């Protein structure tokens, strides 16, 4: 299934279409009932390549014809991709294929690059992410991010995790402590650091620092978690811990992970999109993409013929 052949029902309408009330969506073995008549949602592309109805779920992020230019260079070419809720979506491809650029469009981190130009649309639920009225600060609280290289602040472990909540104006010490404990437990770091929360975060090992960064991202209570090669700088044991963590977080968060490690994508993700030279060549359920890829380029890449 090529991205280019995805059929968008109404290409002129970019406005989200409201769903009718009492819609039932099949999410795996559980059903979500939406009986709020005001509930609206970005148009969901009907994907024939989705295996079975059980894989149908609410689409949280949707891009259409997303292109990114760095000066004269076009880094992304017309990407249309949907990210389902409570699933792990992996973006794979060789270095420089645009997968990180795509990820950084979703929380508008690309805004900070000098001379960047973005065309096309990104929706988070029914909100146009690149609308001039969008509050970027609010958006980034909903869409958390973990970076390739762990980047803890040169502060204590506690202050690292408490930074986001403090930005939101939470000052109450016990409330902060509760959030910090909660976040560190979710990122499976609590038992290792609970005795030394006031120690510098820079004293932690690389793997611990990365889990601290995940805890820091979770502390703002995001709905979406973007991970940019979160384990690429870690040893195999730490990588395994991060992967287990991703698997656990999947129940509560919608995760988009960039990785150039195909085994990792195969292990942790539900859906995979393959990027090459700024284009999305193919996307689909992970198992399908790895076993029966539709495109020749995807097959060449996953069988190790290039990249």
């Amino acid at each position, binding site marked *: 299934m090529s991205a280019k052949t995805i059929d968008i029902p109404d290409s002129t309408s970019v406005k989200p279409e409201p769903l009718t009330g009492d819609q039932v969506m099949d999410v795996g073995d559980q059903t979500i009932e939406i009986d709020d008549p005001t509930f609206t949602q970005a148009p969901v592309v009907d994907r024939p390549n989705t295996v079975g109805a059980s894989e149908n779920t609410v689409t949280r992020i949707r891009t259409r014809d997303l292109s990114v230019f760095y000066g004269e260079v076009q880094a992304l070419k017309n990407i249309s991709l949907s990210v389902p809720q409570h699933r792990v979506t992996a973006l794979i491809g060789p270095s420089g294929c645009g997968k990180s650029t795509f990820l950084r469009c979703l929380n508008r981190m690309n805004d900070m690059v*000098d001379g960047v130009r973005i065309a096309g649309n990104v929706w988070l639920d029914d909100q146009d992410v690149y609308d001039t009225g969008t509050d970027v600060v609010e958006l980034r609280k909903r869409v958390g991010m973990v970076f390739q290289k762990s*980047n803890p*602040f*040169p502060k204590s472990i506690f202050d690292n995790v408490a930074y*986001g909540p403090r*930005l939101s104006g939470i000052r109450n010490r016990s409330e902060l402590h509760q959030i910090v404990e909660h976040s560190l437990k979710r990122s499976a770091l609590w038992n290792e650091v609970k005795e030394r929360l006031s120690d510098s975060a820079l004293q932690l090992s690389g793997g611990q620092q990365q889990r601290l960064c995940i805890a820091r991202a979770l502390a*703002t209570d995001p709905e979406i978690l973007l991970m940019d090669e979160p384990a690429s700088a870690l040893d195999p044991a730490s990588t395994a811990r991060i992967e287990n963590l991703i698997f656990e977080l999947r129940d509560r968060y919608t995760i988009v992970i960039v990785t150039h490690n195909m085994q990792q994508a195969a292990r942790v993700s539900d859906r995979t999109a393959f990027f090459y030279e700024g284009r999305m060549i193919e996307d689909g359920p992970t198992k399908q993409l790895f076993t029966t890829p539709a495109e020749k380029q995807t097959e060449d890449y996953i069988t190790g013929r290039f990249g």
Partner: protein
Amino acid sequence: MNSATNVGGRRGKRMISLLFSAGCLMATMLCLMMLLVLLWSVISEGAAWLNWDFLNNFLSRHPEKAGIKSALAGSLWLTAFTALFSLPLGIGAAVYLEEYAANSWWRKMIQLNISNLAGVPSIVYGILGLGLFVQTFALGRSVISGALTLSLVVLPIIILTTQEALRGVPDSIRHASYALGATRWQTVYCQVLPASLPGIMTGVILALSRAVGEAAPLVAVGALTWVTFVPSSPMDQFTSLPIQIFNWSARPRPEFHQIAGAAIMVLLLVLISMNTIAVFVRYKYGKRIRW
């Protein structure tokens, strides 16, 4: 025949290398020697005069009764007010240039000009201070005028060193902060400034020690040399250590040259302690942060 020239060439190269390193060593030694001679001549003349009375006496026509109380107090006032004016301005300008300004030709032009301003002779700032603060703003020959003039001298230095410190904070820290929903102001205030504080402090202390040692711009502004009182308000007249030294060493009586030596010792002591603090700050806080 061929191999013989080769050996000769190699020997020649080794000689050049040896001569070069010897030359560099000589240059270093010469600098060190000059410093030692200077220190020796100052200390041998001034040491005998340096005592508590010297620090605590006002000026006098009699060298044995003369002291540097007013000069020391004037230098303190000047430094305090120079810091008051130049720190917020200098750090603010640096934060704007590093964290806010887009990378445009406008920014590049400002940057180029600041770098040039750092090289402008201080007497030029003195003339500017005389015209602008003393006359146009009618602040008179006051501590305020002197401090504002010295602020002009040290501002480029503070801006440049602060920029250097801010650039030392990796972008990954800024990105992490933005990704958590921080605004630019929150990122600068909560992350970038604290992380770069040791570097900023070091630069600021070194810039202020430059201000302490400046005489030329103050002469231009018209700092008096016969002040027998401690300034009690920023609008008072003043003198400072370098000006006092300049004044004494210009007098014919050799005793005055000796008390000038004693004053130089005090000034050097102040400067050395400020530099020591700067080194200490850099060492103690700079080591804690490893990116």
